[in-house]
């Protein structure tokens, strides 16, 4: 048997296009990887990391465990399509082997096995396989049904908003919607004519046979197989240009990520794997406060990645993001959404100006002597209550402090980095690193999470322990150098984005507050905490829009009934003070007021 029929041509062409494009893309991206990334791959490819990646591929690309956690119905939809389809192919292959023994069968022979081997003429009909294949087809069809429902009534699927798609997506999506219903029809008609099939195709086949005459069945038989093949062909040929590129791209991405590859503040070839692994599921839309509070719905990560992928990214989209990271915690593919946005800004905005910071050379306005350095940060300079509270705390702890920026310092660089001015940010980073080294500090405390993040992520400060003041205070309490007086105050705590999702510091501030009074949590906290809206990262929304986001957030804090709102970021603090009627304090103030002095 040749396993060839004219109707298989669309499928063969589509499959060939897909294979060629995928191969070209992946090869190009891999070749263009920077040298250090290639070195990471070489070092790790033959290690347990590859096994771990393989397991993750099963969990994420097939079972979609992370989507299940965010939204079980959506998880079922994805895994029924992915796992269901894979098993259809795998069981189909075994079926071929079971019928024909181990021999070479062309691809279309496996895919259209029912067409080529409709009857139990050669071998006996194997009811087990028929049942398994029908079961799998039913599972996939249920996934397709959910996809239809999601498109029409996304709320039923637990999504308030669903993604708006581009043309390629729509073509591929429509083809995908029809692939399995057409397969179901084609196989059912085959069963009606030749018999076989199980509870699904078999019983539909008998139903068709009892209602239609043999001529009609024979007339629709070939066209249905044609349609199925065409749907497959369209899907496969549009797939590498559409959102469905994620199906295969997530696999190399998982491996590369296990090998410690990651995007940086400047764009590089690795970014392609992350950008094209986005399935545009739209899970990132709902957590976005720009969407939920302000109704801005064309800037979210899904649209940012889409625009970047098709080279149509506008600065107004790239810049319209709080970089709060709420979407990133929900992304089922684990894409580094904020870093990718940062390096897009860098690509679009970074205009190096070598002479601009010449005045930095030779300046040193630092003061004091000590192994502990304190970098207040420019926002903290605007909130002097925090400054004086920190003075009290340092004195009470008996720590000698070297003040990096008390009389005016150089910016940490993160605000420049957030606006894409990477080269300028590097100048600040070099200056401050040199300053810290020159003064021989072993510990660096900052009151600003924005500074903390860039100190940890971009500065090379080996040998210097970088701490946020909430960490420092907690450590001083643990060491017994600060003793707290317990009060009957009720506090609530706002997690700053840069401190919480940015640096993973959730517990230390809470432990500090709990040492003074009772802590009550707002509805959204820790990884789910809301952004205050005043983020430096967003240069598009105006002050009144920032305040609308802020009031939404302070509403939750005030609903806790706490007497005082506590936060640990000068920017959040200023914003909450504007938006809330409740007394607001930085965590350092709460501590400084309640130091127990025997």
């Amino acid at each position, binding site marked *: 048997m040749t396993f060839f029929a004219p109707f298989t041509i669309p499928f063969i062409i589509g499959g060939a296009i897909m294979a060629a494009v995928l191969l070209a893309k992946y090869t190009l991206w891999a070749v263009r990887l920077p040298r250090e990334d290639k070195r990471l791959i070489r070092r790790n490819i033959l290690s347990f990391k590859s096994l771990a990646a393989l397991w993750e591929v099963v969990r994420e690309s097939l079972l979609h465990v992370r989507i299940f956690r965010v939204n079980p119905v959506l998880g079922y939809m994805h895994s029924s399509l992915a796992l269901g389809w894979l098993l259809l192919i795998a069981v189909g292959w075994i079926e071929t082997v079971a019928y024909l023994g181990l021999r070479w069968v062309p691809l279309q022979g496996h895919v259209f096995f029912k067409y080529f081997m409709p009857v139990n003429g050669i071998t006996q009909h194997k009811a087990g396989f028929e049942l398994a294949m029908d079961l799998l087809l039913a599972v996939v069809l249920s996934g397709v049904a959910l996809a239809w429902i999601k498109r029409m009534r996304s709320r039923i699927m637990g999504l308030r908003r669903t993604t708006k798609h581009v043309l390629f997506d729509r073509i591929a999506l429509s083809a995908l919607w029809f692939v399995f219903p057409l397969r179901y029809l084609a196989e059912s008609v085959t069963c009606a004519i030749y018999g076989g099939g199980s509870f699904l195709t078999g019983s539909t086949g008998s139903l068709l046979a009892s209602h239609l005459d043999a001529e009609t069945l024979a007339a629709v038989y070939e066209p249905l197989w044609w349609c199925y093949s065409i749907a497959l062909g369209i899907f496969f040929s549009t797939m590498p240009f559409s959102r469905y590129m994620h199906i295969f791209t997530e696999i190399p991405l998982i491996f590369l990520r296990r090998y410690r590859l990651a995007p940086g503040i400047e764009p590089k070839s690795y970014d392609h794997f992350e950008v094209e692994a986005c399935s545009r599921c739209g899970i990132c839309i709902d957590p976005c406060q720009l969407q939920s509070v302000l109704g801005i719905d064309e800037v979210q990560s899904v649209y940012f990645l889409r625009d970047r992928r098709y080279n149509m990214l506008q600065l107004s989209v790239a810049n319209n993001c709080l970089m709060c990271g709420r979407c990133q915690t929900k992304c089922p593919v684990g894409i580094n959404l904020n870093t990718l946005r940062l390096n897009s800004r860098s690509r679009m905005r970074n205009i190096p100006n070598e002479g601009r910071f010449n005045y930095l050379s030779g300046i040193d306005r630092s003061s004091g002597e000590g192994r502990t350095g304190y970098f207040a940060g420019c926002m903290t*300079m*605007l*909130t*002097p209550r925090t400054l004086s509270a920190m003075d009290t705390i340092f004195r009470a702890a008996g720590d000698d402090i070297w003040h990096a920026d008390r009389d*005016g310092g150089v910016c940490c660089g993160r605000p420049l980095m957030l606006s894409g001015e990477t080269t300028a940010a590097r100048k600040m980073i070099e200056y401050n690193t040199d300053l810290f080294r020159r003064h021989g500090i072993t510990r660096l405390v900052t009151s600003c999470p924005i500074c903390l993040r860039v100190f940890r992520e971009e500065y090379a400060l080996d040998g210097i322990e970088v701490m946020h003041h909430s960490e420092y205070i907690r450590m001083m309490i643990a060491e017994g150098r600060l003793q707290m007086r317990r009060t009957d105050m009720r506090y609530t705590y706002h997690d700053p984005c840069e401190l919480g999702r940015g640096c993973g510091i959730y517990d230390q501030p809470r432990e500090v507050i709990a040492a003074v009074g009772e802590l009550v949590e707002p509805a959204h906290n820790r990884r789910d905490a809301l952004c205050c809206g005043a983020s430096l990262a967003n240069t598009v929304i105006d002050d009144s829009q920032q305040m609308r986001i802020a009031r939404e957030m302070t509403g939750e804090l005030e609903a806790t009934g706490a007497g005082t709102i506590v936060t640990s970021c000068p920017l959040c603090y200023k914003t909450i003070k504007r938006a809330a009627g409740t007394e607001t304090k930085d965590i350092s103030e709460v501590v400084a007021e309640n130091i127990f002095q025997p």
Partner: protein
Amino acid sequence: MKPKVVIAGGGAAGMAVALRLERLGVEPVIVEREERLGGKVRGWHKLFPTFTPAAEVLDPLVAQIGRRGIECRTGAAVEALSEHGVKLASGQTIEADAVVVATGFTLFDARRKEEYGYGIYDNVVTSADLERMMNEGAVRLADGSTPRRIALLHCVGSRDEKVCQRHCSKVCCITGVKQAIELKKMFPEADVFNFYMDIRMFGAGYEELYREAQQSYNIHFVRGRISEASPMINGRIQIKAEDTLTGRPLRMSIDMLVLLAGMRANDDNAALAASAGLALAPNGFMQSADPFLGAVRSPRRGIFYAGAVTAPKSLADTLAEASLTADAVMDYLNSVQR
């Protein structure tokens, strides 16, 4: 029987309206939140641009209220109102034939601009604090010494989106000029600086005083807002600003920082407006029926406005407006009786 009009607020506006209405044959009742009449002017020392003592304006008003036997409910706040009277916070109601809202403004709380250190460091004061100090007889630093260098900062809580106050408070520019001259008179050896965005000298005699401040008193004017103030080890204050005329950043150590705090809308405007179906302007002040022909009328017949409850106003403007309000009330009362 005389028609009765309740006036919410016993400051300059409320008193002037009450006196005028009483003369026109109406029985006014003043409801004042504080224990004494006089409002914000009571805390003021001298008035711009003439350096007239505030008492010379306020005392005759208060005296006449007493002489005419006008009923005053002090220590009573208006909680809700309608064209038929007001409801007090105590639950008591006062019925009337018309209501005048003259509840004025609230002084911007300079602590909200934390970067200037008001309430945190010594020797950062507001313009209102300075008037109080002058009333008490002496302007001194916290340690009792006299200041040698003083900065006055304009637009604290005015024209500042970051504290949700977009409007101009109108009177601070000329107050800054007046206080700078007063300080210079007190401390002739001191350097006095005004840090400003614009100098808005629209009133009669204002521009002349501004010129005099520079020519006769050698007061320095720097165009640029102070970005932050921080305490120094020697007890002085270091300020950072940008001189936007020369385009250069500057830092300066000073002994005293005077913040020219702006006028903001009362917090209870919203509740009053809601109780009577009135409207608020976007800046939170009460919205008049019409900016030209109905500036003292509310959108609701029988409810009127006087003074700074509708927008920042100088004392002179407020007193002038009081007569307009009384006039509009009379028109209304006549039309209702007929």
